[in-house]
């Protein structure tokens, strides 16, 4: 921030510089996050892609990270803004640890903090272009919530961002129930991620599923899902309607 004596010329140049700093559109983006509560805690799934418009630029981005001892943060949207948010949270958890009073930030507190951060950035017309999913367990209680880039937040038993909201949420509304076992939870998430693979053009077949329980965080190794293309209607597709359509 330069200090200049406010003369006509100086001011207008400074203002022009400030204007161009605001976010206009995202550059490198991650696609959906899908997360559910299950018997022992929360499961969160995401693929590892970072798209640069229509180019698949990065194929090894971890979009789900552990925060402190009790939370998992997943993000879709601008990857650089997600990294900035991780830096804010580093500072937050560092200060929390430095108090050294036996207390640690739980998922509810972090969700509230993130909601305030996103809302305040939106108020300055310079949003962090992310939709965040915050899941965690503290004192036996599971917590799962979401914050959008303009600060809208809520909690639920299952959440999904971006395309996941349209494709995965209906599946979860139908098939989720309380006290899912770990295996059933993973199967349900894989079902959602498979649909996203088929239908979301920015999804890639390399995903990670993160688990958080009272004991701590585990992030799986990246793996890919089996896809099924042997549908009879994919053989000889023009059989029913000859022509250039």
């Amino acid at each position: 921030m330069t200090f200049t004596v406010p003369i006509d010329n100086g001011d207008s140049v400074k203002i022009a510089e400030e204007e161009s700093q605001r976010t206009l559109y995202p550059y490198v983006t991650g696609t959906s996050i899908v997360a559910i509560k299950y018997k022992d805690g929360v499961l969160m799934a995401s693929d590892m892609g970072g798209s640069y418009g229509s180019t698949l630029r990065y194929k090894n981005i971890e979009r789900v990270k552990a925060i402190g001892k009790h939370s998992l943060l997943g993000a879709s949207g601008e990857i650089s803004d997600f990294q900035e948010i991780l830096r804010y949270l580093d500072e937050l958890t560092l200060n929390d640890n430095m108090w050294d009073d036996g207390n640690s930030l739980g998922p509810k507190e972090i969700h509230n903090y993130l909601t305030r951060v996103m809302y305040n950035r939106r108020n300055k017309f310079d949003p962090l272009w992310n939709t965040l999913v915050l899941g965690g367990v503290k004192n036996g209680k599971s917590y799962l919530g979401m914050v959008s880039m303009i600060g809208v937040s809520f909690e639920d038993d299952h959440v999904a961002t971006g395309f996941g909201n349209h494709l995965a949420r209906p599946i979860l509304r139908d098939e989720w129930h309380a006290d899912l076992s770990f295996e059933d939870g993973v199967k349900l998430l894989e079902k959602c991620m498979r649909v996203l693979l088929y239908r979301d053009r920015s999804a890639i077949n390399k995903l990670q599923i993160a688990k958080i329980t009272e004991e701590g965080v585990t992030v799986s190794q990246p793996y890919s899902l089996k896809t099924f293309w042997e549908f009879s209607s994919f053989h000889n597709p023009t059989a029913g309607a000859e022509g250039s359509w």
Partner: protein
Amino acid sequence: MTKQHANWSPYDNNGGTCVAIAGSDYCVIAADTRMSTGYSILSRDYSKIHKLADRAVLSSSGFQADVKALQKVLKSRHLIYQHQHNKQMSCPAMAQLLSNTLYFKRFFPYYAFNVLGGLDEEGKGCVFTYDAVGSYERVGYGAQGSGSTLIMPFLDNQLKSPSPLLLPKQDSNTPLSEAEAVDLVKTVFASATERDIYTGDRLEIMILKADGIKTELMDLRKD
């Protein structure tokens, strides 16, 4: 080079409907629990009713991030009031505070459509209805949100409120009993749910009386 315009909006409408009815010694505040964005449902279980003081309950529909921020501001102002005056804020006092808070952001408004319900200093039910920038009025009943246009005319018909222009001022509180008012609220929400896509899932009803607050829940259509 022309100035670039943002391709995102700082506002969103998360839908939903809020209703309040004032009685002789009670106040009924009700809202659905659906939160939407565009054509998607974000949550079927999001409460739009917030208790600000023992005798003032706020229900707001509109942009929920603004609603949450508004609620936090009012809550903290109420805490300060309690420290300074050693008592809770009355509903008319909270009504004025809400109006001032909304107008404070006249040039970047809280996109919140509010209905404030509670008991006045005499123990009678009171309802205040607002627009997004703080213009408010005490009424006998009010509806705001996506279903308000469907509900308000029906309430006008059923509650037969006297004109606020008459002199001497006539009491606009309904003579209906608490049970009848709750029943009326359930009816209007069931109807609004049929035709308003943003209203549905579940209805949360809060009944405020001098001895405390009771909450009732009713399922609504989920489509």
